[in-house]
């Protein structure tokens, strides 16, 4: 039964291994033990994040946001087995397309986030490293820092993370975040202005703003 598994990516908290589930090509996301933190904290964080991630991915998919299909969850080993998406990271695409294409992609991102927020799903780490373009759709991955939360504060913080990611990684294209907000506004059921106002408030709370 033992299948040889190859590590294809080593992130900050997890290893991604190429695997198989039945006859499907799959990946395993394994949250590895971090020796820098004490055992109590380490296990708590890994177990909670694995469980939350699986829960939120299923919730997102149910509400029309493209995410990999979950095949299996192993809480003991803090591992999720999921669909393998043969796509490209948005981080690597976004700087290298036309402004028109960039606008289209960013609006899609915004629409996806609105669909999550309509259902009180907070992703927790929305960056372009956590989006995969596959089959013409932007798939969201890495829900490990997410939660279910209906507060505007949580939704604002969620978008603020993306805003900062754009500032650090896609600083040559300053309109990206505005496009995202356009898409967001078009699909959000509640008043998006309240969330946008909250983002401004969060920025001002930071140091030296």
């Amino acid at each position: 039964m033992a299948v040889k598994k190859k590590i294809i990516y080593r992130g900050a908290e997890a290893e991604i291994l190429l695997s198989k589930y039945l006859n499907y090509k799959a990946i395993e996301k394994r949250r590895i033990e971090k020796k820098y933190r004490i055992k109590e904290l380490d296990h708590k964080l890994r177990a909670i994040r694995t469980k939350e991630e699986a829960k939120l991915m299923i919730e997102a998919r149910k509400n029309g946001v493209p995410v990999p299909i979950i095949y299996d969850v192993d809480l003991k080993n803090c591992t999720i087995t999921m669909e393998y998406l043969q796509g490209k990271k948005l981080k690597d695409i976004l700087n290298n397309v036309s402004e028109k294409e960039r606008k289209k992609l960013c609006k899609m991102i915004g629409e996806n986030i609105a669909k999550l927020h309509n259902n009180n799903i907070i992703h927790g780490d929305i960056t372009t490293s956590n989006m995969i373009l596959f089959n013409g759709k932007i798939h969201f991955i890495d829900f490990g820092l997410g939660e279910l939360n209906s507060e505007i504060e949580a939704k604002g913080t969620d978008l603020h993370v993306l805003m900062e990611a754009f500032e650090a990684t896609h600083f040559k294209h300053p309109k990206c975040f505005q496009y995202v907000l356009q898409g967001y506004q078009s699909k959000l059921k509640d008043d998006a202005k309240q969330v946008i106002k909250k983002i401004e408030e969060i920025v001002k709370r930071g140091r030296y703003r």
Partner: protein
Amino acid sequence: MICLGIEGTAHTIGVGIAEDVNEKCKVLANIIKMYQPKEGGIHPREAANHHATFIGDLIIKAIETAKIDKKDIDLIAFSKGPGLGPCLRTAATAARALSLTLNKSIVGVNHCVAHIEIGRGTTGCRDPVLLYVSGANTQTIAFAEGKYRVFGETLDIGIGNMLDKFGRTIGLEFPCGPKIEKLAEKGKKYIDLPYSIKGMDVAFSGLLTAAENIARDKKQRLEDICYSIQETAFAALTEITERAMAHTEKNEVLLGGGVACNKRLREMVKTMAKERGAKFYVPRNNLCVDNGAMIAWNGILMYQSGTKMSIKETTIDQKYRTDMVDVKWR
């Protein structure tokens, strides 16, 4: 080239003298004096008065220590920001006076960038992610296309500020970090505290409130609370550092800022680096804390890459962000 740098962003007034030797930083003198509030935290005006009282003596002492003549100084540098207005103005005024008296050029330096450059200039790292942890600042910084960009930072208060606030609650004197570190060494039991990470950012206010409440209840040992604060907060800092490293694909990590003197934090970041096959660097303690040598060294880098300032341009900027600096020397 020899530069005299004056640091005065917050509690510390410092005068350092640095020289460039084969593109590395040689520290000739590095003298600091720290303002100690009688009670509570830093009072900006009191701190500025303290700086004004001692800056003259510190300059003389630094020149003596460096065993140079004041004529040997080629450049004056000062901390332009970010920091407390009255303190910044005091340091800048001293720098201007020195520049005019000695008839030497003057440059204003970004304090946060100086922390990363002194690390690069003295430890041998080349392109690190810096975890910059001090009273006011908590940032992960890395170089990308002409600027030092902030990848993660605190969404509310700095780590040192959090430790100081907690310390005051339990009756410790400023600065509380080293005292909390001592107490934490005797801690055994981990008490659950809020662990707050938002993407690549951290937040400490929830952790602070929870810890203060536990301390007020007096049901737990103080040592255990301090231990739990350190374990939780430093794990979060190490995690955002690792996230910034994964995101920027860099394999060097550098520590800087006063809280970088904490042994447990060093150990955690070092372990993280080892586990991901990265290199760990930390400057010696007197270059981690706020100091004049780092200002002097960054001044040399700026001047040699073409930055010149007239006296008129030597204004201070309390909100001088890391990513506002045009890094011409890299």
